[in-house]
């Protein structure tokens, strides 16, 4: 029974998702087959979504699953299939590049990890302890934040009634939200332009070519 | 226009010697034409108002050869091949039979397929029929766009509907029963 008492599920799940995310990220790096890379990337991104859930960012986690894993990767696999012909399926990096990149990457990784543990404040939980679960349920707050109301900045009494009003100047993330919306519209139009219609050109050979059996 | 004396006269008048003979007193009257004039005659039959044989129903090959030497000696004909064209018209609803006679082998050299001009330029339906006759009867249709075997495998040897055809004993290692 002691082993059960010592088990910390939070740490367990964190480790699980962290290892999955890092492991599959490494798999993306070391695979040269492009389709498998896409597959590993999905798993890595999915595991990261799990980390987001653990950190209490449910909405971001689901967004990650929906847009990143679902949308982007379907798009990517689409691209892979369109361009996947045997010679390009596995383009291998040159070995010299490998060494240089590994040295640089290793150094970067060391620095980042050192700094991650360097700040004492990050390394330890604050004395007041983490907030309870309910605070993590943030979908509505995120939505309100995007529409310009930072409900999380309201001071509230015990019953949840706001003690003060937000300053008029605080528009939350309304502006970035609008900018991103316009940006997406532009991307949409741009994509439509890239794949725009062209007048069909048909060579005579095409129309008369017969199929070889 | 029915395949009658008037038609034959018309054809003779226009194509002269290309009309070899005509048999009108039989169940299905037929006109025999020379291979050289076949395509022109067919085009005429298809396009000429009043004839308008716009549909090629069938092309058949008939091999006249007695494999039994006794019967061959009694036969009234020398061994030959006949290619029979059955035409009809969806407009006049008339039917016509054309025949082309050719030797069994080109210049009687065994293995050299006899040649008949292709009418696939006149009726596109002739394409497959000619391929079938080529495949099974061994007639080379000159001017055919894609003369390949159609029913037998591409690497089949021989033309099965010929009277002297011997089925192979083995095909890709498979023994014939």
């Amino acid at each position, binding site marked *: 029974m002691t082993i059960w008492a010592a088990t910390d599920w939070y740490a367990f799940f964190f480790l699980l998702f962290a290892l999955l995310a890092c492991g599959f*990220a490494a798999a993306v790096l070391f695979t040269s087959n492009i389709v498998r890379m896409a597959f590993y990337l999905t798993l890595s991104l999915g595991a990261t979504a799990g980390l987001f859930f653990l950190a209490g960012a449910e909405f971001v986690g689901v967004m990650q699953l929906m847009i990143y894993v679902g949308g982007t990767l379907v798009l990517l696999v689409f691209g892979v299939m369109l361009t996947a012909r045997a010679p390009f399926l596995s383009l291998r990096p040159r070995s010299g590049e490998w060494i240089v990149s590994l040295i640089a990457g290793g150094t970067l990784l060391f620095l980042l990890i050192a700094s991650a543990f360097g700040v004492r404040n990050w390394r330890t939980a604050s004395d007041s302890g983490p*907030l309870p679960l309910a605070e993590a349920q943030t979908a509505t707050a995120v939505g309100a934040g995007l529409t310009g109301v930072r409900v999380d900045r309201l001071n509230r009494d015990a019953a949840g009634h706001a003690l003060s009003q937000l300053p008029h100047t605080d528009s939350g993330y309304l502006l970035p939200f609008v900018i*991103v919306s316009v940006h997406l519209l532009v991307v949409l139009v741009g994509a439509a332009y890239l794949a725009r219609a062209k007048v069909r050109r048909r060579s005579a050979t095409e129309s008369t070519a017969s199929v070889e059996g | 226009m029915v395949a009658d004396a008037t038609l034959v006269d018309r054809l003779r008048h226009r194509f002269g010697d290309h009309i070899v003979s005509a048999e009108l007193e039989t169940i299905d009257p037929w006109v025999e034409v020379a291979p050289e004039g076949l395509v022109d005659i067919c085009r005429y039959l298809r396009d000429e108002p009043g004839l308008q044989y716009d549909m090629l129903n069938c092309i058949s090959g008939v091999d006249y050869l007695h494999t039994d030497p006794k019967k061959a000696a009694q036969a009234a004909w020398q061994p030959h091949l006949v290619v029979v064209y059955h035409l009809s018209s969806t407009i006049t609803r008339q039917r016509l039979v054309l025949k082309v006679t050719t030797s069994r082998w080109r210049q009687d050299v065994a293995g050299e397929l006899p040649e008949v001009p292709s009418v696939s330029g006149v009726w596109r339906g002739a394409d497959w029929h000619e391929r079938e006759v080529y495949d099974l009867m061994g007639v080379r249709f000159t001017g055919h766009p894609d003369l390949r075997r159609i029913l037998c495998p591409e690497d089949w040897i021989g033309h099965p509907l010929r009277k002297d055809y011997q089925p192979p004993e083995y095909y890709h290692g498979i023994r014939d029963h």
Partner: protein
Amino acid sequence: MCGLLAQITVSHYLVVGAVLFVTGVLCMATKRNALGVLMGIELLLNGANVNFVAFGSKLLRADALGLDGQLIPLFVIVLAAAEAAVALAIALNFYNNHTTVDVDKAEELKG
């Protein structure tokens, strides 16, 4: 569990973020396939997102960044999707013109 993992803190998340980030950078550096480079970018952005979420999580620290830590990753994700679409379009165009997706061959900027 061992002492280092006795309590999962922001630092642990930062390590994951760092690993993802570095992997992404290496992917971008070493892959010759244009789509592989694109995947490297995705990993890199993802590593950054982990950091944001960790800093913003009130489960890990009381004095956390709060909602900003979630809103910024949202923008990153959305923009990454848009970026992926554009990059894919570029890759496909490149493939159209050069019949290859090897970025090392993309010396000329003209299509």
